């Protein structure tokens, strides 16, 4: 079953929350990245099954990283993690190839619903 996940977020707090939800539900966290640059590097190195990608990050935004990863791997399954009020950015991400999105603060149910369907 496809359960290897790359978590991308510049906030440790967010990464930990997600990590807890996911590990308790059968997912394996293969790596964490703190900005868009690392996200692309980790992805290409580890080829995870799924990616949770924050949008606003230093050095390289989640959208840029998304675009680069998809360019390299069109089958990449990337879920955007957005804060409230970032609708147009989410739209842009989805237009660029993001498969789905979840909104912070995370609801465990929603997170699992989205990721389970993609897995």
């Amino acid at each position, binding site marked *: 079953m496809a359960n290897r996940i790359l978590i991308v977020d510049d906030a440790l707090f967010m990464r930990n929350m997600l990590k807890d939800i996911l590990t308790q539900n059968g997912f394996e966290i293969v790596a964490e990245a703190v900005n868009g640059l690392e996200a692309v590097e980790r992805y290409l190195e580890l080829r995870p099954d799924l990616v949770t990608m924050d949008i606003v990050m230093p050095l390289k935004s989640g959208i840029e990283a998304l675009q680069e990863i998809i360019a390299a791997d069109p089958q990449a399954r990337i879920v955007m993690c*957005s804060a*409230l009020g*970032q*609708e*147009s950015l*989410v*739209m842009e991400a*989805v*237009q660029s190839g993001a*498969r*789905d*999105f979840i*909104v912070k603060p995370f*609801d465990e*149910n*929603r997170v699992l*619903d989205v990721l389970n369907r993609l897995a």
Partner: protein
Amino acid sequence: MDMEKYRTLFLQEAGTHLQTMSRLISSDAPCGAAGIDALFRCAHSIKGMAASMGYEDLTRLCHELENRLGVFRGGGSIPEAAMGALEKALDFIESRLEAIAAAPAGAASARAPAPEGGPPHPLPPHGPAESEQPRLWNLRIELEPTEAAPAVRLMLLQREIAARGEAIETRPDAQTLAAGGELRSLHMRLRSTLDLADFCARLDLRPGIRSAEAEQEVQPPPAPPRTTPELVRVRGEMLDRLLDLATEMIAERIRLQEQCRKQEVSEMAAGLESLGKQLRRLHQDVIDARMMPLSQLTARLPRQLRELARKTGKEVRLRMEGEDLMLDRSILDAMSDPLMHILRNAVDHGIEERGAVSIRACRRGDRVLIEVRDDGRGMDPRHLRARALKKGLLSEEEVQALSDGESLMLICRPGFSTADGVTDLSGRGVGMDAVKAALEKVGGELRIESRPGLGSCFSLLLPLSAALVQLLLVRFGELLLGFPVSRIEAGLKVRTGEVRSQGARLVIEHRGEAIPLLSLGKILGQAPAAGSEHLHLLLTRVAGRRAALVVDGFEGIREAFIKPLSAPLNRIAGLSTSTILGSGEVLFVLDPQELLPVPNPQAAGETP
């Protein structure tokens, strides 16, 4: 027991019974004892067959019908109040028959009730769970009001759904969704072989989705069945005659072979003539076997007229005469739509609140005349002329030159349609121009008479035998081609010097009219014969406008049996049929109407 092979026969027989019943209850005179008896027998017959085939609901209905009719039989007449229910019952039977005809093999409804005393029928095999035929679905998705970034959510859903079939309609559309905003519901219409109801049921359970529903759209009714059935009834003695003839011909052939061997040429000539006579008889006999009564066409009309009357809220009586008249089955088929269209027009435009339509058929020499008369408001030639002018179909002078009789034919010009909007009943693109064309295609003629305030009469003149038509043979370069005489107004031979140019086109003066010349060569992509002193022209009409087709020469008029071309040749524009000449050569028959582009003042000058 496999009932499938009896399906065609069942549909045929049940259809005939249904037609009889329909005619009985729609005739002018109320149903007497004999009529009720006949209705009873029909219902009984259909019931029996339906039961054998395992069509439960049809069986039950006919059984009920039988019961009621039995009661009426006792009373001697059918009460007025019951007529409506009777009509509904017939409608139901018809729709069930249509559904059965359209259903794929093996999809018969559940097990038949066991006939008295007989063994029970085994259950027919179940149809496949997922239909291979894509179905039309309507989906409606509502998001929770608290859902964040709803437009994005809907966009993702739209993609998910679109991946499951062929999206026909999406509201809001992709562009609106991309613009974002407070959009919370999605409607989609798509074609899919998957079970979208199931998909939506699961979708409904997802967090963030308030509701998700999928509804199958009711399929449009299947295409109306052929007027003439696939199976034909032929009199036994006809088959005997055919057999006798065939036997004679075999004997003749053996004689010929012997004579050929002995080189007895003059005997052979006589033998061939004899064979020729037999062949003509054979051909005629087969043509006769193809003849069917007009009732094949008209039987459905009472019902369809009732529907029309109901839809328009008018009261229309129908009278039919001469339904026994025999016509070739391909003519009957070709007349089905046109006749219906004329009838529709009569109800839609002719009849005001109440009126009568009569369809009368009789023999007129070697043709059949079918008259459709209504006592409605009729057509005013002046009004028609004004309309033609307004629609730009004719110029002022052309309009003035028309007689009243010719003005009535204006309704057959494409683009003329008297209604500005397209009504459900008369608007479907089967205009009077199509009616006229269909008629002429089988070698027939349309005539129109009308008196304002008194009504109209549409006369369809049809040949008895579809296959035999008059052809004008023309030469073009190396080609020999045929044109149906009915499509040609005249053949002209003019001196090359008579051709004038009018603007960008070449025209010829004929009876005071400037007629544009069109080159057959250009249309066929063939180089014409080298220029000569004379031009041979075929005068014809295309979309109501006169045109002259330039050919190399005329080769006379021939009467010939034409056969429609089969695929893929029949898809070539303008090429409709072919025939085989005495020489054994194949002659292609062209239809100028479909072959020629509409003559247009802008067209570049044609050099014939």
